[in-house]
């Protein structure tokens, strides 16, 4: 079942990349996707850890929200990079990560890193060590809005 899902995802990827829809190239596409699925199966990387996560319908909305956060943070950090009088006040702290699956924690850690001004340094099952450029950035992470949103995405079936 998962293999079929992966095959379909790969085939859509092929169609998007290719732009040539003659029989020969499409045939190559069908064979190539089968080869990629076979190799993924041999590597034993087709499991629930990654696949089920990307079928969650709320995930695109979370990404859109994250995009907004990224833009806000970008402007702030870019100002601190360039403006002569600006100050930075870096700090390191442990933030709770309440996600249940490893993919949830990874999504959270990568979201933190994607937002300029905060970088995740180390991850454990229920904690992430974060380096923040300013106290405001640290406060945003500790407010845990991002983590709560990921938990909501994670929780749906």
């Amino acid at each position, binding site marked *: 079942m998962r293999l079929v899902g*992966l095959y379909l995802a*790969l085939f859509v*990827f*092929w169609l998007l*990349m*290719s732009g*040539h829809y003659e029989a020969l*190239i499409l045939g*190559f*596409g069908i064979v*190539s*996707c089968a*080869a*990629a*699925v076979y*190799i*993924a199966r*041999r*590597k034993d*990387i087709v499991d629930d*850890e*990654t696949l089920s996560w990307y079928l969650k319908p709320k995930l695109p909305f979370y990404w859109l929200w994250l995009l907004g956060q990224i833009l806000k943070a970008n402007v702030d950090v870019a100002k601190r990079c360039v403006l002569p009088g600006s100050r930075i006040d870096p700090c390191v702290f442990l933030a709770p990560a309440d996600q249940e699956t*490893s*993919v949830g*924690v*990874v999504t959270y*850690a*990568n979201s933190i890193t994607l937002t300029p001004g905060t970088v*995740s340094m180390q*991850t454990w099952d229920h904690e992430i060590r974060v380096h923040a450029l300013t106290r405001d950035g640290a406060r945003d992470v500790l407010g845990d809005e991002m983590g709560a949103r990921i938990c909501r995405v994670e929780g749906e079936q």
Partner: protein
Amino acid sequence: MIEHVVLRVIAKLLAPFIVLFALYVQFHGDFGPGGGFQAGVIFASAFILYALIYGVENARQIAPPAVAQAAIGLGVLIYAGTGVASMLLGGKYLDYSLLAQDAGHGQHYGILIVEFGVGVTVAAVMITVFFTFAGRRGVLEAREDVATAEDDEDR
């Protein structure tokens, strides 16, 4: 680095797409930049990423060195075989025009087959080179162990 959960999850996610991207580059060589050599390198990079995260020992299970070494020969054989086939059909070496009923199709198929041979060889060579060099420390350590054991026996 299997305990590095962020890397492991992201690599798992990307790996099948890297392989497919390699095959895409392989088969679209005549439409854009690409071809056998690049495709082979990308294909190998999928295995190199796997080896970096799961260790070269596990990667050897996925792509056994014997298969990789056979593939090196196979790729060259495909390349040379296409050339010889066109000679048998009465043309020069790698004279693609004779491989199909008309010259245009012949050129097209000929290039695809030859590029496929190049891709197989390059991928197999890259994987073999990486496995050989990445495994070196283990080999050296084993040799040192043997050397110290012999020293102990001498004493």
